[in-house]
């Protein structure tokens, strides 16, 4: 139906092979299928119990070891009898000095232990920016604007349309006001306005939610990859909220979609150095100055996927905050593949042959992302996996190395280590790929898919929208562990592990408050425009 109306573009032949490659690369993973039910059902149930038994055994190995030891001691004590025990006790001669030294030693060792323990970092609360309806961009509006802006390039318009149809985005994603113009009007002033709109709104909400006052903030970190004015966005926040003169401020730019985790890592390290401090981290991406206005296909993709969004996070190492904090940070793992040339160039900001600057995505993106993920998993695995999985992985690794390299590599079951997964909503293919590789169920990746649908790819803040989704659905329980994974230019894969330390009620405000009842939504493979 639509084809009949696009009279000029149907007469031109698109390099079908090329467009198909891009589309399957970045929007859908055709090889992914839901795991099939095994025909030998009873066999698999038996296997499941064997597996469970094995897990209990290995995970509580120390406990199992201690049991015979305690039993032995008890038996010995019973055998000795109470009188014998009394004489044994009296025969021990304790010098006063010996007692003093031993106690000092014990106190010294315990003090050393407590002091050298890292300070716990608490996430007291966070706030996500909810764009107003006046920034809404439905598919059809986006496509119409594209047709008008790229009126001389029907091939590029057709390409964008196919990407959008398969992107997994919904009809409520938002772009900043400057991009609503035909052609877009990206000026520095418009970019600053967007930054103010997003950042101030998120920080205001955070302050209101937590009762935090601006003068109490000791550390401020803002990360925004593509917009870096002078004075920095951090200075903009300090100016607006009149923060203290001795605040430690950091502005991270150019670090891509994984910069959110880098900021959390930085905040954690700073909170180790400064006792009793509060850190506020603001993650956002400013779209206005980076809307690509040319026709290169590798650079048009970000236009279709990136949308407005931002989040502000309140971190603390103060004991008084541990009571009201929602999460505690357990681990942050950072992996950088920049040493490899291909990885370095796979997400690259450059000028196209016409001099228009944009971000070009290379065709090796998914492969490199897979490699980066593998590195990250290998590092984080030993930190979070239960002993049973680690043992299996070790056996499989040694077997492949020494016995038969053709053994299938054992993929540890991360579902045992984590209850919730927040995968950066970089695009449909990223989520599909991770779901396949980590063998996650549809419910595990639901937060990521729904965030992509409702908000689009909001870059570093998408992980916070996903966490907010899980809370809004009421699935977060005390003791649950969350794994946030982000990919970004560089090529980097950074992840953080949080533990929920407070029972969380379903929030009445927040970015999902007015639409959570509509979710989860069934996202079709191809949306008809």
């Amino acid at each position, binding site marked *: 139906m639509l084809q009949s*109306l696009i009279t000029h573009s149907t007469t031109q032949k698109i390099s079908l092979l090329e467009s198909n490659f891009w589309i399957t690369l970045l929007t859908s993973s055709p090889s992914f299928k839901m795991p099939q039910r095994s025909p030998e059902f009873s066999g698999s149930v038996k296997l499941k119990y064997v597996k469970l038994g094995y897990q209990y055994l290995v995970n509580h190995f120390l406990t199992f070891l201690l049991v015979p030891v305690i039993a032995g001691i008890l038996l010995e004590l019973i055998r000795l009898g109470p009188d014998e025990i009394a004489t044994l006790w009296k025969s021990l001669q304790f010098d006063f000095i010996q007692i003093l030294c031993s106690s000092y030693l014990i106190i010294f060792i315990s003090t050393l232990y407590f002091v050298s323990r890292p300070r716990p970092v608490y996430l007291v609360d966070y706030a996500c920016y909810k764009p107003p309806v006046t920034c809404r961009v439905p598919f059809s509006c986006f496509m*119409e604007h594209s047709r008008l802006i790229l009126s001389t390039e029907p091939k590029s318009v057709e390409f964008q349309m196919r990407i959008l149809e398969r992107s997994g985005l919904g009809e*409520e994603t938002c772009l900043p006001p400057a991009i609503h113009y035909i052609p877009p009007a990206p000026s520095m002033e418009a970019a600053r306005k967007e930054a103010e709109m997003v950042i101030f709104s998120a920080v205001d909400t955070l302050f209101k939610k937590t009762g935090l006052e601006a003068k109490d903030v000791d550390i401020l970190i803002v990360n925004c990859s593509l917009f870096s004015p002078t004075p920095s966005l951090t200075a903009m926040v300090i100016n607006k909220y009149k923060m203290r003169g001795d605040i430690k401020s950091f502005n991270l730019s150019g670090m891509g979609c994984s910069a959110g985790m880098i900021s959390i890592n930085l905040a954690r390290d700073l909170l180790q150095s400064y006792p009793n401090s509060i850190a506020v981290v603001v993650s956002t991406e400013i779209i206005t100055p980076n809307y690509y206005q040319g026709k290169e296909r590798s650079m048009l993709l970000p236009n279709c996927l990136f949308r407005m969004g931002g989040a502000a996070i309140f971190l603390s190492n103060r004991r008084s905050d541990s009571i009201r904090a929602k999460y505690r940070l357990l681990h942050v793992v950072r992996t950088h593949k920049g040493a490899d040339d291909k990885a370095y160039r796979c997400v690259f900001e450059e000028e196209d042959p016409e001099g228009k600057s944009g971000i070009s995505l290379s065709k090796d993106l998914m492969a490199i992302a897979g490699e980066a993920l593998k590195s990250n998993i290998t590092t984080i695995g030993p930190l979070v996996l239960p002993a049973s999985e680690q043992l299996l992985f070790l056996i499989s690794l040694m077997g492949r190395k020494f016995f038969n390299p053709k053994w299938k590599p054992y993929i540890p079951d991360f579902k045992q280590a984590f209850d919730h997964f927040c995968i950066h909503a970089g695009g449909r293919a990223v989520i599909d790929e991770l779901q396949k590789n980590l063998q996650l169920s549809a419910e595990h990746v639901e937060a990521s898919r729904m965030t992509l649908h409702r908000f689009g790819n909001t870059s570093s803040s998408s992980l916070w929208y996903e966490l907010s989704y899980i809370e809004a659905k009421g699935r977060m329980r005390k003791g649950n562990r969350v794994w946030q994974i982000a990919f970004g230019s560089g090529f980097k894969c950074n992840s953080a592990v949080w533990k929920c330390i407070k029972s969380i009620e379903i929030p009445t405000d927040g970015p999902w408050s007015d639409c959570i009842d509509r979710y989860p939504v069934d996202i079709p493979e191809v949306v008809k425009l």
Partner: protein
Amino acid sequence: MVSTAGENAAVYDVRLSSVVPASITGEDKVHELCNMDLMLKLHYVKGIYFFRSGAARGLTINDLKKPMFECLALYSTLSGRVRKSEDGRPFIKCNDSGVRIAEAKCSKTLDEWLAFNDDSLNDQLIYSQFLAPDAGFTPLVFVQFTWFKCGGISIGLSWAHVVGDAFSASHFINMWGQILTGQVPPHHLDTYNPKNQKKFPSPLAKVPLSIQRVLLDPDGGHWLLSNHRKMRTHSFHVTPKQLNRLTEEAKLLKPFEVISAMIWKSLAKTSGKAEEPKIVTLISGTWDKENELPSNSRVIISTIEAAEAPPAQADLAELARLIAQTQEDETHLVERVMDQKGSDDGESRDFILYGARLTFVNLEKMNIYALKMGGHHQPVFASYSVSGVGDEGAVLVLPGPPPGTESGEDEGGRVINLILPENQLEELKYQLGNEWGIH
């Protein structure tokens, strides 16, 4: 169309953007176009409102756009786009594409502009595009905000007639004005369901006189009309005094009929015996509520034939009586024409109504001065017109500025907008000025 930069370009710095509905319309929502809609598809309604600087004080373009988002949530059809179904019949897919907003600046002050008294200049204040050639991706509604040098502002509305009639357009922009001034909009709008659906026997009993089949250039996608004669627009103001004089002379207290008679007679005189318009079309509407979805279902089309005396020589009173009493309602006939198939296959399904014959449009009851900005600021002047009019021309009778506005005197004035071939217009101006002192 808006003029680009040139020496005499008074309107400059035009920027386009889109406004979409505030809430999702949902998948696969379509609006079927009825026969009357398709009959009127080649026409466009244009409206213009002028406000003094006090009305727009402190309002930025975003303040003006924001109520439009909420307004469009009520009118899902306006944000849609035309699509063709398998049998070739157009319909509207409500896909939230939105309406186009243009922002512009004008180097003249409001008073200077109004002093020009040239309606064709108003085209610069109303950004519009025909639905051809890319009907699937052209907005149905355009709104232009132009800031004048003195701080005054004009609002130009371009509205595809296929969506609704002039009253619908006025209701839409009035709703926007209400939301702008802080009123809470209704939850939803009602649909008009006409009760009497007369059934006519299959073969068309009579060929309707008011419409004309046109052959369109297929490259234009069947949405663009080209005129053979050069058409121009002009606006006359009939003061209450002049109107009283007219109604006395015509011995009839119906202003629209009297004014139509006057114009008919004058045009008949100027065009000579051969081209005298013997049959004219009357278009009126029966809107009583404003909170209804836009439609063309309330349009009533009738024809009047000057069978006995030629209108040039007839008495004003006679002609006025003829108009008031011998209207032949053709509305259903016109609608039936679109249903005709069989031997008509292969023939063009494109028609014009306005301008097929000399057309008089009764817009007296239009509430155009109800559009208020800043709470109580009424427009200094407001007017409506139609574009895509056929060669016979059209006459729109609108209410004059009410008391309370700057130029409003006592109740009862009228504004007559004429869209006529150039030569006829010049003659008519002379006639009206001479005989009745109307300028």
